[in-house]
C-alpha cells in the first residue's frame, strides 16, 4: 500500500503534535484556568472565577521590574562579549585551533550551572575579587548579593548560547565578498559595517532572543548570587507555588510573564523584518 502525501504528513507530525499537546497546550490550559481560581484555605488551588489574581499583579511589580531590566541588560552584555569572540573564532583563528577553542566554549556546560553559580559566591564574596581590589587600594566593595552579581552570573551562564548562533552566521560568510570590497577600495571597517555585520544579523537576532527568553524565566542565578534580594519573576513563581502555595496567583503571574514574552517576540519579529533579514535566515523563527 502506497503512503499518500497526507498520510506521510500525518505520520511525520504526529509525534511532535502529541508531545506539544500533552506537554505544552494541556499544562498551559491548566495554568490559564487556575489563574482565574482562588487559593485553597490550606494552600493550593480552589476552583472559582475571579479576576482578583490579575488585579493583585502589581504586588509583584518589583519582580517584573528586576526581570525586565536585568534580562535585556544581560542580553546586551552577553552580545557585546560574544560578538568579538565569535568573530575571532569564525574568521581570525587558524583551522588548527578552531575545534579546540570551540570545545573550550562548551566545556563549562559539562558542570551543572548550580555548581558554577556557587563558585561565583566565593569569587564575588568578601574574600574573592573585592579583597583583591582592596589590596590595590580600591576601598571596600560589595559585589555579592547585588544586581551586578546577578548580571555577572547570567552573562557567564548564557554566553555560549550567544556565541554559537553568531559563530555559525559568520562562518557561513562568503569571504569573496570581503575580497571584492577590498579590491574596490573599501577600508576594513567599511566592509565590516556593510558586509560582515549585516550578514551576521540572523545569528545576532537568534542568539539575543534565545538568551533573552531564557533569562526572563531565570530563577536559579538570582537566588544564588542575589541572596534573595534580587528577585526575578521566576523567583516569585517558585515562592508562590512552593512557599505560600497560592497556585491561583502563581498561575496569574505565569500568564502575565507569558504575555510579556509574546509581546517581546512580536516586536522582535517586526524588527527582523525592518532589518530586511529574510525570515528563513533567522534560525529561531
Amino acid at each position, binding site marked *: 500500500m502506497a503512503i499518500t502525501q497526507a498520510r506521510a504528513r500525518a505520520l511525520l507530525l504526529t509525534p511532535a503534535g502529541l508531545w506539544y499537546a500533552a506537554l505544552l497546550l494541556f499544562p498551559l490550559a491548566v495554568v490559564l484556568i487556575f489563574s482565574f481560581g482562588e487559593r485553597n484555605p490550606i*494552600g493550593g488551588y480552589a476552583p472559582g472565577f475571579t479576576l482578583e489574581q490579575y488585579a493583585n499583579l502589581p504586588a509583584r511589580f518589583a519582580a517584573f521590574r528586576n526581570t525586565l531590566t536585568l534580562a535585556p541588560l544581560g542580553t546586551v552584555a552577553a552580545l557585546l562579549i560574544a560578538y568579538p569572540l565569535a568573530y575571532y573564532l569564525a574568521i581570525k583563528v587558524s583551522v588548527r585551533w578552531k575545534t579546540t577553542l570551540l570545545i573550550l566554549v562548551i566545556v563549562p556546560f559539562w558542570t551543572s550551572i548550580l555548581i558554577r553559580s556557587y563558585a561565583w559566591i566565593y569569587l564575588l*564574596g568578601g*574574600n574573592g575579587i573585592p579583597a583583591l581590589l582592596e589590596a590595590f587600594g580600591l576601598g571596600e566593595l560589595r559585589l555579592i*548579593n547585588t544586581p551586578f552579581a546577578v548580571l555577572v552570573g547570567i552573562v557567564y551562564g548564557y554566553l555560549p548560547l550567544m556565541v554559537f548562533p553568531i559563530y555559525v552566521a559568520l562562518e557561513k560568510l562568503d569571504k569573496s565578498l570581503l575580497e571584492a570590497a577590498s579590491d574596490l577600495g573599501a577600508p576594513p571597517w567599511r566592509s565590516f559595517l556593510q558586509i560582515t555585520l549585516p550578514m551576521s544579523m540572523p545569528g545576532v537576532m537568534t542568539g539575543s532572543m534565545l538568551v533573552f527568553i531564557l533569562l526572563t524565566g531565570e530563577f536559579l542565578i538570582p537566588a544564588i548570587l542575589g541572596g534573595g534580594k534580587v528577585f526575578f519573576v521566576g*523567583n516569585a513563581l517558585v515562592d508562590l507555588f*512552593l*512557599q505560600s*502555595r497560592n497556585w491561583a496567583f502563581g498561575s496569574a503571574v505565569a500568564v502575565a510573564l507569558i504575555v510579556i514574552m509574546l509581546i517581546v517576540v512580536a516586536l522582535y519579529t517586526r524588527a527582523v523584518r525592518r532589518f530586511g533579514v529574510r525570515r528563513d535566515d533567522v534560525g529561531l523563527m
Partner: protein
Amino acid sequence: MTRDNSPITRQKFMEELRRYEKGSITRRHFLGATGLGTAMAVMGGAVPSLLPGRAQAQDLGNRVVLATWPNYHDAANFDRFAEETGVFAQVNVFGSNEEMLAKLQAGGSGWDVFVPTNYAISTYVEADLIEPLDLSRLPNYDAAAFEQRFADAGTIDGTTYAVPKNWGTTGIAFNSSKTGGVVDSWKTFFDGARDQFDGRVMVHDYQLTTIGNALVYFGHSFNSVDPAELADAENLLIDVKPHLFAISSDYQPSMRNGDAWLTMCWTGDGKQMNSDMPEIGFALGREGGEIWSDYYAVPKGAPHREAAYALINYLLDPEVNAREALAHGYPVADSRTNALLPEELLNDPILYPAAESLTPLEFGAAVTLTDPNRAELMARFKSA
C-alpha cells in the same frame, strides 16, 4: 573452571559464543571459558537486590525515599541500613515545611518517609496526606523514653501520626571576632542590622522564623496572625531589607567565609559552625523565638511502606540515633539515646541550653503554616 580469570581475546569469545549457540558446549562451560561467570558473580555482589538475601525474605524491596532537612543525618547510618536490609535510602533535602507540604499536595511525591516539624502535622492530618502509624511495627519506639513536649505534636486525637526525631531552637549565630561579643537579642539583631552590622546580617528565607522573630522584636507572639502585629513585622522587615546581607536559609557558606557576621540559625547549624570555627557562637534571643521538634512520618500512599517502617525503626534505635546526633549536632528527646552520648555533648550549651533560656521560646503554631497573610507578607518582603 581453572581459566575463569584469564583474559580472552575477542575472536576466541566469538568462537565460544558460536559453539554455545550451536549447543556443542554447555552454558556452564561457556560462562567459565569466557570469564562471564566471574563477571556476573562480581556484579551480582555489587547489586544486592540481585541476591536472594534478607531483603527478599522480609519483602522490604530495595529502596526507600526519605524527604528531610539539610545536614540532618549521618550518611554512614544509611550505608549500614543498606548492608543490614538490602534497602538503599534515597535522600531528598528540603528548605521549608511549606515546600514539603506543596510537594505532597501536588501528589506523586514518591516519598516513603518524611520529616515534618511539630506545627505542620495537624495540617497534614486535615489534608489527609499522612498515614496513622502502626506502632507495633516500630519496636524501637518507646514513648516513655521521650520527653513529652517534644513528642506530643505527633499524636492528634489519640492517633499517632509521627514519632519524634530531634528537637532544637532557632537562635542567632554570630561571628564574635566581628560583632565584638555575644549577640543574644532580636533587638540587637534587627537594630544592629541597620547600624553597626550594616550589610552583614542574614535572615531565613522562611516565613515562620523570619516573620516570627520580627514579631518577637516588638514583644508580640512568635506565632501571631493578628493583622496589626503582622503590619509591625512587615514594616520592620522592609525597613531592614536594604541593610541585609541576604535572605537565605543556606547561611553556613557566607558565615564561614566571613561575609556575613550574624544570622538566624538552627541549633545544629550553630553547633556545626562552632565546632569548626570557635569564633562563631550561637545564642537564643532573650525576648523569645522558636523551639521546635521534628518527627518521622509516613505519607499516604507511600510506595515502599514496609521499607519506610524498617527505616524509621532503624533510625530510632538508640545507638543509631546517637551516631546521628554526633553527626548533625541536634539534641535528642530520647533518654535512651542521651544515655549513650558523651558527657561534653550533653553539657554543650548550644545543644542543651539552660532550661530558663528556653522558657520564653514558643513552639510554632499550625495556623502560621496556612495563614495567607503571613505567606503573602513574606512574599512582599522578598519582592520589595
